[in-house]
């Protein structure tokens, strides 16, 4: 029988709290990438003209094409990090199982063609509950996206769950 630990918070988390990662920088956002994104998320309907029709987009308050809020300029990096196997993933037992707890995005500025987006993240908080899954750890990571003018595009709070 596996004994229940008092906490799932480990030293690595304590060391990483509020430590912001080195920025990851996107290639410049392109009109074509925005158009394709619009097509894919609206498939099979025609996406809004704001995402592909420059003449229409000029008539809006944005003054030109902007990307959908959910657009990801970091897709398709040329060099990829191969994620290291997590030591805890192989063992099984309390604290080694995980799931996506959801996300909340706070949007401030639209992404436009030519924007170069930087992102940085930090583990900012955690809390534990004793629930139907036993002792469960909720870790909150904040991700900040900024453009080349250091304007905040969005902040994301994502929650990962371990139990």
């Amino acid at each position: 029988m596996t004994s229940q630990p008092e906490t799932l918070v480990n030293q690595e988390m304590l060391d990483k709290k509020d430590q912001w990662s080195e920025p990851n920088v996107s290639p410049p956002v392109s009109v074509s990438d925005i158009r394709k994104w619009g097509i894919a998320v609206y498939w099979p309907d025609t996406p809004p003209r704001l995402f592909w029709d420059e003449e229409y987009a000029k008539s809006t308050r944005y003054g030109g094409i902007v990307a959908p809020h959910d657009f990801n300029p970091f897709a398709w990096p040329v060099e990829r990090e191969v994620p290291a196997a997590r030591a805890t993933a192989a063992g099984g037992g309390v604290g080694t199982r995980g799931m996506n707890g959801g996300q909340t995005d706070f949007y401030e500025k639209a992404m436009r063609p030519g924007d170069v987006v930087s992102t940085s993240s930090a583990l900012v908080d955690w809390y534990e509950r004793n629930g139907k899954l036993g002792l469960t750890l909720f870790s909150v990571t904040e991700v900040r996206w900024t453009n080349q003018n250091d304007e905040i595009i969005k902040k994301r709070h994502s929650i990962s769950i371990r139990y």
Partner: protein
Amino acid sequence: MAYNVYYEDVEVGQEIPEWSRQTDFMHWNRYAAINDEFVYIHMDDEAGRAAMNEQGAFGMGNLRFAYFHNALRDWAGDEAYVTKLGCQFRAINQKNDVLTVKGTVTAKREEDGMYLVDIEMNVENQEGQKTAPGEATIALPSKSGNHNLPG
């Protein structure tokens, strides 16, 4: 100009128009192509079953997140601006599911010159199962014209 909805016309308790998609590999593969999300569980039934989903491959949470935005955009128009959107993924998007984004206005308020509307949202499948409870805030134009719209 695409001013679909003005702040003054929105009432607490009001439902926004539903937004639906029947999803399958045609949708998931297109999304994988733009978001670089070629993950076996979304592409291969055997991999989906190995991940404990008996029906096989299943859809991306990120695509459902996009659908939330689409529902808000189609309702409010281009000039409105979503300032907050969050959700939790509680159930799997199975192949051929008909996903419907629903939302109900829960509050409205003025803040820093913005006319904000809070909306409780969810994505339901064809069986009425609520797959992704969420909440959004959207800044709408005011008929006064004296509004601050971010973006």
